[in-house]
Structure formats: structure tokens, C-alpha cells
């Protein structure tokens, strides 16, 4: 099963490699990983998307908790949560396709953030499924470049990950 683990970790050199190293050393999967400092600059928040049986996920969370730099973590998949991923897509356009690509982007609530004679850069956020769907809807030959942040998430309501 897919799990999204959100981690608050000391914002120190090497913290990221401790987490990444743990996953590779113990043979756990990482589908995606995002990390950036939080509103408190001494803390980073990391989101790891992984999959595994309940036993494996239990070990992953225990092993992560054991890292000295990890302050707190939650498995978002355990409760209701929202998740979003950011994507930038560079699309080739011609006079004939320019309007069509823009319309498609609008349908997916994308934003065109760069326009050149030959194409667009489209910014889009949403669940990973939605981003997949948008890329699939584009003409395969028109897609020049795709960059995705990997999902990040937050639990809904009162529950959450903070000090």
C-alpha cells in the first residue's frame, strides 16, 4: 500500500542523506521525496512517498523515528489528508496546436508561465493522478520536458505535524 510519511527533521547538513541512506540500507522503496525548511528555519519538513506492507511501513516509521535528527513524523495515509504535487511541463506548440494546448491546460487548471514562439511552460498542481492525466492528454511528441516535485501533504483538521 502507498504511504505518505511527513517528517519534521533538524535542518542540519546531512539530514537528508540520513533519511535517504536509511531507505537504501534497509531496502525500502522511495517513490518520491521532497524537502525544504519550514516556517521555523531550524526545521525541515520532508515528505516521503513509499509503499510496502503494514509490517514494512511500521519498521520504516520506527527506523525513521530512531534517527537522532528526526523530531517528529506522521504517516498521512493513516487518516484523512490533502496532498498536492507541483509540475512544470514544457510543451512544443505550432500555430495549429497553440490554442488547443492552452484550452487543455485551462481544463486542468494549469497556468501558462512562459510563452515563446515555439511553446509554453505550464505550471500545474494537483494530486499525482491529475498530473499524470494531464501529461497523458498532451500529444506525446509535444512534451519536451516534465519536472515534478513529488507529492506533499497535510492532514485535515486539527490533527497535524507540528511541534
Amino acid at each position: 500500500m502507498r504511504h505518505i510519511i511527513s517528517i519534521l527533521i533538524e535542518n542540519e547538513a546531512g539530514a537528508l542523506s540520513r533519511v535517504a541512506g536509511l531507505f537504501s540500507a534497509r531496502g525500502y522503496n522511495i517513490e518520491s521525496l521532497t524537502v525544504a525548511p519550514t516556517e521555523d528555519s531550524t526545521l525541515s519538513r520532508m515528505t516521503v512517498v513509499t509503499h510496502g506492507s503494514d509490517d514494512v511501513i511500521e519498521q520504516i516509521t520506527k527506523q525513521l523515528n530512531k534517527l537522532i535528527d528526526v523530531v517528529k513524523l506522521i504517516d498521512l495515509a493513516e487518516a484523512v489528508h490533502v496532498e498536492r504535487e507541483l509540475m512544470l511541463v514544457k510543451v512544443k506548440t505550432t500555430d495549429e496546436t497553440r490554442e488547443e494546448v492552452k484550452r487543455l491546460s485551462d481544463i486542468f487548471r494549469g497556468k501558462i508561465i512562459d510563452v515563446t514562439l515555439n511553446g509554453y511552460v505550464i505550471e500545474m498542481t494537483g494530486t499525482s493522478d491529475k498530473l499524470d492525466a494531464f501529461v497523458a492528454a498532451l500529444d506525446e511528441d509535444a512534451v519536451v520536458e516534465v519536472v515534478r516535485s513529488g507529492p506533499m501533504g497535510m492532514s485535515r483538521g486539527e490533527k497535524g505535524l507540528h511541534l
Partner: protein
Amino acid sequence: MELSGGEIVVQSLEDEGVEFLFGYPGGAVLHLYDAIFHQEKVKHILVRHEQAAVHSADAYARSTGKPGVVLVTSGPGATNAVTGIATAHLDSIPMVIISGQVGTPVIGSDAFQEVDMVGITRPCVKHNFLVKNLADLAETMKKAFHVATTGRPGPVVVDIPKDITDPSIKIEYEYPREISMRSYNPVVKGHSGQIKKAVDLLLSAQRPMIYAGGGVILGEGSAELTEFAQLLGYPVTNTLMGLGGYPATDKQFIGMLGMHGTYEANMAMHESDVIIAIGARFDDRVTGKLEEFCPYAKIIHIDIDPSSISKTVKVDIPIVGQVTEVLREMLDLIKASNVRIDEKALEAWWSQVNKWRDVNCLEYDRHSEFIKPQYVVEQLYQVTNGEAFVTSDVGQHQMFASQYYHFDKPRRWINSGGLGTMGFGLPAAIGVKLAHPEADVACITGEASIQMCIQELATATQYRTPVKVINLNNRYMGMVRQWQEFSYECRYSESYMDTIPDFVKLAEAYGHVGMQIEKPGDVRPALEEAFAMKDRLVFMDFITDRTENVYPMIEAGKAHHEMKLRVAPGTPIDRELA
């Protein structure tokens, strides 16, 4: 008080009450060594190889409970230390390893003797630090000791660039008395509800087992474990790391369990209906084939490390907490409980356990014309009155030591259980002897293992650590040969060394006493003679039976009740198998 970085490190060691610093100098730590030169409280032990520095400090920690401290230089000094660090990590030994690093301006430039020590050791330490600012140094030292010694202990590396220890830059020094880390708060007290449930289950058991590991020793819980086991009257087995955590000569002790554990311990685990695991981690050398491990048992597991629980074997009642705290709480509940143990069931259980005991699985041929390694360990046990500190290397001799030396006290049995590091024994013995100068210290080793850190015979000369080296010399890497005999149709691929040094001359070359013992009848007198030489290191080269194997044995892939036993005519084993 204004101090330089080098002085801060040394002063903080003094403030931590560090007696011995095991190390080896080099370019990146010269400022530090100069600071050591100017003080007398922390005694530096100069080893002959950095790996040995870590093993000696590790064994010092194992035998005293105090953290072991190491100082090595950058690059090769640091990488040489890694095997020792991994050894300590797998056995959860509290240690602080200080490594020199190239100066901060050149980090990352492939400078002379530069290696990414923090990166290399990350998977084999409890935590590590790279000190980039002099202002953080004292606090980092405090954190290192705090992390190493609390919770589940472990080694902590502090990597210090050379410019941080510059003698010309001084800052105000104050060693923090306490430290709190928001990201690190080990659990101490167990969950009361879980403890209550565990006690209810324990009291209702028909075929109970107490399975205790190294956590009991690390957590100083031997007294509590002994009281707990004796109050209940249940059989006790120890892991390799747990030996001495429960008195081996007590009638409730049924030996070590696992791959080379006793028949009675493994059979009892297999048939048990309630097992309480205390500070043990269901290691693969204990469980054998996981799917068939303890099929009838409900399992209670006490451990300080949540990640040890249900890692390999799913348990029914997990309790995270300090072993002494949890056992004390259990003792109170048991004493206050009006539930009585089913004495009839317990009696029947003991009579079954005793039948397994009667198989006498550790019996061996006592009439051989060759010296049996088991016999040497038995005699060592008698000559030292069971009071010695025994370190070991890794292989057959390690198993013979664990089977035939009966440890009644914790911290007396010092071996590399988790990593299985050959070369551990001799430097370990030196570390133990420094900590316990009055005690008998024996290093049980083999002719292959001993050669991995043989250079430490010089350290032993320099610091006058008169340990006794018990070399069980069978001219083979015995354990490798045994596996090749059982699983590779006796193809002894590279498990034999063509040239073995003359250990007597070698010992003498280092200034020690060497003895070679070839006849069974000479074993006892030689041991008595050696241990009478209180102020000399005696290297005892016992020429043992080349073909001897360690029994019982659970072969790879087999379940823990499927043991290979030694079958000798006329022994009770024979009857059992018939």
C-alpha cells in the same frame, strides 16, 4: 576559562570522567595530541592499529558500563576504525569516537588524508557529528556522550576538522552540565497497561520461557532479571550477548539458545506457550527458520528500542522501556497478584525440560588422544574459578567459550556477537585488563582470528596488561571448515593456512611468555602455571583436535528444533535419536 579547540576536546573528556583514551596520532589530530601532552587526567593508550583502538575501548565499555572513547586521525585512521565502530554498533555499545578531519577550507577537495567520515560511518553509528564551528564543540561533545549512553546505547562519531582545534584560537569554555535535544527523548517507563497484560499472560502460562539478551546486561538489569525469574520459577535461556545476565550455574538456567545453543534451550523455546523476551532482538542466529520459530507461543517483548519490536518476529505484547523499570513494575504486580501459577503444569514442564537436558548435548569425547577445545575451556573455567573476564574472537572457539565457560555475572563475557569481527579478542582483552587490573582476563581465540590484530601484543607490552591468550589452534578456520564439511562435501576451500607462525617465539619477540601445549594431560598444569604468572602476558598455543566441530548446530535454513547433535556411542544422545 579560555581554551583552544584541542584543549576543549581533552577538557570535555576530563569533565565526562573519561579514564582512558584509546588512539593513534596523525596529521589532522596533532593539535589534539598536543593538548593531551599537557594534561595527566585522561590516560592515552597508544594502540598499533586504529581498529584495535576501537575494540579496546569497546571492551572497556562492555566490562564497565562506562562509555569507551577513541581518538583517530583523518583518512586511513578513520577508515581503519570503521570495523570497530560497526562492531560496537551491532552490539549497542556506548562509545564516542573522535576522528580528525582535514581543515574546513579544504573539505571536499580530496585533500591529503581526507575521507568523508560522517558519510562512511552513517550506517554504522547511532549518530555522528561534523563540527564546523569552534563555538559548537563543547556542546557537541556533550551531545555525543549523551546520545551514546542513553536509550539503546551505541557508538557516536565526532569528526573534527584540524582548524577547529587550532591552538592559537581560544574561546570561553564551559561544559554543559545537562543537555536536552528536542529530537531525542528515549523512553524509560513501559506502558502500564501492557505490563499488566504481560503479567496476566505470564501467570497463566503452562510452558513458559524467559529468553533474555544483551539488553539485560547493557541496561544493568541482571539483579531484576534474576529476582523475576526466581520468583516465577520459569526456565531461563540467554542469547550469546546475554550470557552472564542470569547466573549460568543456577538450576533454572538451561543454556544459550540459537544456532549453537543447547538442545534443551531450543526445544523448550519451540514447545513453549508463553515466551517473555527481555532485551533480546530475535536475531537470525537465534530464530533459525523464521516461519517455524516458536509456533505455539504467545510472545511478550521488552525492549528499549521500538524498532526491535516485531522487526522479524511478530510479538503479542510489546513493551517499550528500560529493562530495570519494566521488570520492577512486573515484580510488584506479580507479588500483589492473587492469580497463582499453575504449579502442576510448571512441574510437568520442568520434567519435560529436564528430559531434554538429559540428552547432554554438550558432551564430547573425553578420551581423545588430542586436546579437545571444549576441554581447554572447561579447565580454564575451573582454574579461574569461573571469575575471569573472557574475551573472544570469532569462530568455533567463540562458541566453545560460550558453551563451556559458565558466566554467573554480567559484563564478564566480551565478544563480537552481532558483527562477528575476527580480531576483536586481543585488543578487547587489553581494554578489559586496563579497566580491571586485578582481575584474570583471558582471550579465547584461534590461530586465524588472533592474527587479525596480533600487533596488539606490543600494546600489551607497553601498558603491562598481563592477559592470558588461550589460542585454540586447530590449523583451520574452524567454523568455515565446519560449514564446508556439512554443506560443501568437505571441500575445504581456503579454510586452511599453510604457514602458521611459531606463536611461542612470536610472543617472546614481543616480550611475553609463550607456551605450546600438545597433550591433554598438560592442559591443566599449563593453565595453572600461566595464571600464576600474574604480571606476565602468557600466550598459550593449544594444539587441538583438527576435526572437532561445534554441536549442537542449527544449519542454515533449518528451524530451531531441528538441531544437528553430536552422536557418540553410548551417550544418551544416541538413545534419544534411536
